[in-house]
């Protein structure tokens, strides 16, 4: 069990790390997919089967591919070499995060260790139980999520295809005056 955890943790960290360092964006996306699968493994480790399946289905299956498509539709997939990978003043960003990690997260974690570190308890998780809970007290939130999904995705379609912009393009002359000073 421990071995599996460390293995998966390593893969996860590796995946995430690579994602933010690789210059080639496609490689970055694939490494993120690796990260997502490692996380699915961790979920399985924690006996949350359904969540692992959903994680694979949603993240690796659709969000991953969405990312790939997005990259396909935009330029400098490989990342132009002459510009640094990091944005301006990335050092400050790094420092801020490190400060957060050291100053805040770790102390909090150390403090929560209050309860007894119960080992990994084994109970047979069942999707039926999740289904019942989902239907019983949380039915409304299910509805809300459904609504959010539809609205969000329709909005995404409109924004992506630029339907409105297309019409605008017809009316607004191509050489739109840009703001003078920026």
């Amino acid at each position: 069990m421990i071995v599996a955890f460390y293995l998966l943790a390593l893969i996860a960290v590796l995946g995430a790390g690579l994602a933010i360092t690789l210059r080639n964006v496609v490689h970055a996306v694939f490494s993120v997919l690796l990260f997502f699968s490692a996380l699915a493994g961790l979920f399985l480790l924690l006996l949350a089967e359904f969540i692992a399946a959903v994680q694979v289905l949603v993240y690796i299956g659709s969000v991953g591919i969405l990312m790939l498509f997005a990259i396909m539709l935009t330029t400098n997939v490989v990342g132009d070499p002459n510009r640094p990978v990091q944005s301006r003043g990335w050092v400050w960003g790094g420092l801020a995060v490190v400060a957060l990690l050291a100053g805040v997260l770790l102390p909090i974690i150390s403090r929560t260790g209050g309860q007894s570190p119960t080992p990994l308890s084994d109970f047979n998780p069942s999707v039926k139980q999740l289904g019942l809970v989902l239907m019983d007290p949380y039915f409304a939130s299910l509805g809300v999520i459904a609504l959010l999904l539809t609205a969000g995705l329709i909005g995404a379609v409109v924004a992506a295809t630029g339907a409105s912009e297309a019409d605008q393009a017809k009316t607004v002359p191509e050489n739109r005056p840009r703001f003078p000073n920026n």
Partner: protein
Amino acid sequence: MNLFDFSHSVGWLWWIPLFPLMATVWLGFFNPSGKFAAAVANAALLASLLLSIRAFAMTWGPEAGVLTANFTWIQVAGVNLEFGVVLNPLTGAMLAMVTFVGLLIFLYSTSYMSRDPGMTRFFCYLSLFMVGMLGLVMSNSLLLLFMFWEIVGLASYLLIGFWFRKPSAAAAAKKAFITTRIGDLGFLLGLLWAFKATSTFLLFDGGQGLLEIEQITALSATKDVLFGLNGAGVIALFLFIGAVGKSGQLPLHVWLPDAMEGPTPVSALIHAATMVAAGVFLVARAFPLFLADATVLGIVSWVGALTALFAALVALGQYDIKRILAYSTVSQLGLMMVGLGAGGLALSEGGVSIGTFHLLTHAFFKALLFLGAGAIIHGCGHEQDIRLMGGVFNRMKVASICYLAGALALCAFPFTSGYYSKDQILLSAWTAHGAVFWISASASLLTAFYMTRQCCYVFLGDYRGKGPIRQSPSLMTAPLVILAIFSLAMGIVSEEFYHILTYLSGIAVDQHAWIVVVVSWVIALGGIALGLLIYGGSQLGLDATDPMKGSLRTPYAWLENQFFIDELYDATVARLWKASAVLIVFLESGIHFLVETVRGLVTGMGGFLSKTIDQKLIDQISFDGVCDRIYKSGRLNAIIQNGFLQGYLRSVTLGAVILGVLYLVFAR
């Protein structure tokens, strides 16, 4: 009071002035073409005429007496001003006379003015005048009477100044308006005094009215209110001043001769038959007030007599045909005042009928004379100077004959209507006050004399004017003929058959004095003979001097220049006016100085406030200063918002870190 109740009450009387009012409004606003406007005005007046005849018939019936219909117009401070109409013999007669004569004059002027571009406007003003006159005649409240009085004054101003492009016409209109205004001032004072005394305007109000016994006795109870007159007398005097202004009695007569600038039908209608008679009518209407104080009656008769004599004298020296007639009107009005004054003194209530009867007859033959003069002027190519006329008789037969009939009636040729009415006046003058009688008699003699002078000038001899004499159209001669018949027959008919005098005054009037009859015959025939004698054979014309003038050199000059009354007024009133103007200017400068100083003070203080406090304190230090300091700090903050997305994220995380640390450290 109900307009549509034609059964018994007299509410429907209002229709009489309403018809001409509708005509005025129609012509005034829609401005139809000339011919159509004349038709509208005539139709409206015809309708009023029919209703007036009905009213006139009602006054003859057994239930004659005073019928009134009053309504409250407005309520002011608890007092409700009431208006109303009254129907008594005086109203009935006047209504019939005014509408009948008016209609004839309307028809006459339809053809007389047919070529004038402002015909619509002319008929509009005429209808307006009719509204005023008819309203005045039948109004039962002094205030309402005063209102119509003003409308009549306005109409006369408009009509005199009809050809406003002529400066003399405009000046004459203004002069007429102002002088009548002075008279109206007296009327107004009388009005207010009456209201103050009796708190009502109504003349006949079922006992409470001004002219009713109860009020009269209450008024006359207060003695020696002013100049030794009692309450009623004072009111009567003021009303008489109004009458003097309106009817052109001695002090205020200057406007009437100049009023001849207007078109002839105007002169005929307003300055002969109706409007000038309004003053006499007023005195007749408010006769009970006059009766309450004998001295007022005396004043009335003396003013009347003096005016009659003066006007007759001046008429002798005039060469303008219309001006002669104007002065004759003034003298006849004087005689009417004598009729009323002396009549009052002689017959108390009966006096009303004497003055009114002469007013009615005078209306007919004076209108005839004016219309005849109009026809002659029209015929002689708009020539008004009698010295340039002559020989008109054999050219304009019908007009001349009618004109002569009118002249005879005016001279009181026996058995004409003038003779009967003037005879009554002389009778009452004789019984009342000898001096007044002799003045009136001499005035009548002079009247006969200057009328024959005028007739000789115009009709005898050969034509001295330029161009052919055009025959006047039938529409002008028809009214002349009708008026001629009336001026001749009216006297006999009304005196003998209808006893108009008892009808008018309500009590039996029967005066007999043979000396007066003889004197009147002598006056009439003597005057005519004297005139024929002097002017019959003589050489008349522009170059030849007037026979009278030849002999009485200077006094005749005085007559020609109307006793220099106008110049007198100029000298006195005008100079007075100028003096007051100078005074005002002086006062003005004093006030000016005061205002100046105050202004200086205020601006000084204002300056101080704005400069020191406003600029320095508020602008620099407190308000603007703060603003631009905010602006500067705003610029400072803007640097942070530089659109660098990740910069924002970093600041967020930094904030999180700080919060976390704080939480950890403190929330143990």
